[in-house]
């Protein structure tokens, strides 16, 4: 089976968003992921209710450096006596907020660019792919540091920068799929019927790519949460909020390593791990559902590359070859018809 047919299969499986959730729920691993993400969202929303102490309260001199106990489930910080459990709960907000908003925004921008490049082709395609090539060689983390320095350290700027430089991967994937969908019979029929380009893109092409987009978005969320933690760790996140990366930086700066305050390091690390892991789980399971050929291990490999900002690169490099080499072949009618709905 060629990679082209695999992509078509991916496009065919799945239906509405609700049926997707249902499929995930039926998958044992997917259920774990869904429950975890749901839990995190609840924690983030109800943070002020759930947190036993005020995490911003830095005046508890008597409570400094307490080990985990019933009173302070995860202990307190050495420097200011903040309750780590409460900080952890508040940190969920930052990670989820940045992860999800960036993921969704990247999904929109990446899908738009990918569909435009794939469907319109020609100059637009060339331009978009050249932009992708340029963005791929610029080192991401240093660039983000420079831009947050110039534009300010609010979450808005951080999300904006993540989106501006994070859409390339998704755009490539979507483009490859669109190049296949473009030649399917239902798109040709719509073209013959006189539908406008924009209409075809929105009504016929985009729905066929939706599953790939959702799948990628969960993985992007996971990747962005790691990146955000790193940025906060460097002290480049929003200075006003508590985030897991910042907690780790404070722990290191506050001598948690030196005084053996393992609880101060383990807690935020576990938070990052849990959030990233649950989003990743969902992404991997979706991949298994949509693309049965994809073994779990290879999706982890892809995920790994994803977190390194160059995921799927090689897979779709080889696909580019095919596209330029052979003319669009006649697709199996049943396959091309079932593409959207």
């Amino acid at each position, binding site marked *: 089976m060629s990679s082209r047919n695999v992509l078509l299969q991916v496009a065919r499986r799945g239906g509405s968003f609700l049926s997707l959730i249902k499929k995930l729920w039926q998958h044992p691993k997917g259920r774990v992921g869904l429950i975890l993400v749901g839990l995190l969202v609840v924690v983030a929303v109800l943070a002020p209710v759930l947190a036993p102490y005020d995490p911003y309260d830095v005046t508890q001199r008597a409570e400094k450096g307490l080990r985990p106990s019933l009173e302070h489930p995860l202990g307190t910080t050495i420097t200011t006596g903040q309750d780590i459990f409460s900080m952890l709960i508040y940190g969920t907000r930052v990670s989820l907020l940045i992860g999800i908003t960036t993921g969704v925004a990247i999904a929109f921008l990446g899908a738009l660019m990918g569909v435009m490049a794939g469907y319109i082709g020609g100059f637009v395609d060339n331009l978009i792919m050249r932009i992708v090539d340029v963005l791929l*060689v*610029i080192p991401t983390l*240093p660039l983000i*540091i420079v*831009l947050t*320095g110039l534009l300010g350290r609010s979450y808005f700027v951080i999300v904006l920068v993540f989106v501006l430089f994070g859409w390339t991967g998704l755009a490539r994937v979507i483009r490859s799929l669109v190049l296949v969908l473009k030649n399917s019979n239902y798109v040709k029929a719509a073209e013959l019927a006189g539908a406008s380009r924009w209409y075809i893109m929105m009504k016929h092409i985009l729905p066929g790519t939706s599953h790939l987009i959702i799948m990628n978005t969960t993985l992007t969320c996971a990747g962005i949460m790691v990146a955000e933690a*790193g940025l906060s760790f460097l002290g480049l996140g929003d200075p006003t909020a508590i985030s897991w990366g910042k907690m780790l930086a404070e722990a290191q700066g506050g001598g948690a*390593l030196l005084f053996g305050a393992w609880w101060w390091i383990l807690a935020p690390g576990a938070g990052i791990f849990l959030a990233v892991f649950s989003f990743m789980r969902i992404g991997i399971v979706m991949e298994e559902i949509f693309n049965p050929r994809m073994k779990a291990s290879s999706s982890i490999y892809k995920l*790994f590359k994803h977190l390194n900002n160059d995921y799927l690169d090689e897979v779709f490099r080889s696909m580019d070859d095919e596209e330029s080499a052979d003319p669009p072949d006649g697709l199996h009618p049943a396959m091309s018809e079932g593409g959207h709905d």
Partner: protein
Amino acid sequence: MKKSYVIKRILYAVFIFFVVLTLNFFIPRIGVSDPAERYYPPQGAMSEIEYEIIKQYTREQYGFDVSTFQQYIRYLQDLAHFDLGTSLQAGSPKVTELIGQRLPWTLVLSVTTLLISLSIGLLFGTFAAWKRGRWQDTMLLNASTISVALPAFFIALMLSFYLGFELELFPAYTNPNMVGQFDWSWEAIQVVFNNAALPIMSMALGGIVGYSQTTRNSVIAVTNEDFVITARAKGLSHTTVLYKHVLRNAMLPLSTSIGMSISGLIGGAIIIERVFNWQGMGTLFLEANSTSDYPLMMGIMLFLSAFAILANLVTELFYVILDPRVTVGDRR
């Protein structure tokens, strides 16, 4: 190797480099029309004339004393002489000089990390492919799922805590005198690697996982090819088939990821260098960031981008030698 293909790739790389350096010139100018106003606002006890002098001096330092177009031309001229400008640090050192001082220290980390993760990853990957479907394979898979979700700097902190402070096996922080005292003696080299042990470990974990999964998948893919079955049927030994037929071909997809990961490792070392206070390019970049030293920051960025472009180009051309089929399709 087709000559036209090679020339095309080189020209394209040059084009990308030109776009990148133009971006590199304009990025720090986003929202900053006058660095003097931005970084040196007037202070209380300062007369108008004093402030004018400071402003003029700052503009000259940042190169803002002429129009933007002239600045761009000057930037290109300097680049043609491999001059990335002058840092704002005390003593106005050249950016290229500063990068030259720090680059070897970053290379020590990234090259060693690459070698270690590549060799262990190859070993584990081949092993997992050999035992595919059995518990060893599953275990490796689960281990990689877990390690992917752990940020490298968290692993670095844990290693620094446990191996550095608790067991005292390796220095938890880099000895700040290491750089100055280095004199190529055997003892000095030992000190360097002793200090580098923890940063390398924390960076290598992700690489080991990545390479072992790549190797596993590509070895399994190659094992199912006809020529491997033929080799087996000829009665060749398992080892011969593994080394001469399977691994050689399985290395192909791996070679592309090596090229990309070299440039990624140098840029990605920023956070790890910060954790251990390792005096490499990452620390230099963060120092520059904290003092708004834009000539230095953009110089490092351009250097990293150029490195990435070069690494990609070399990988592409190298790939043609390894797998001559590439030129036939001629992508792009």
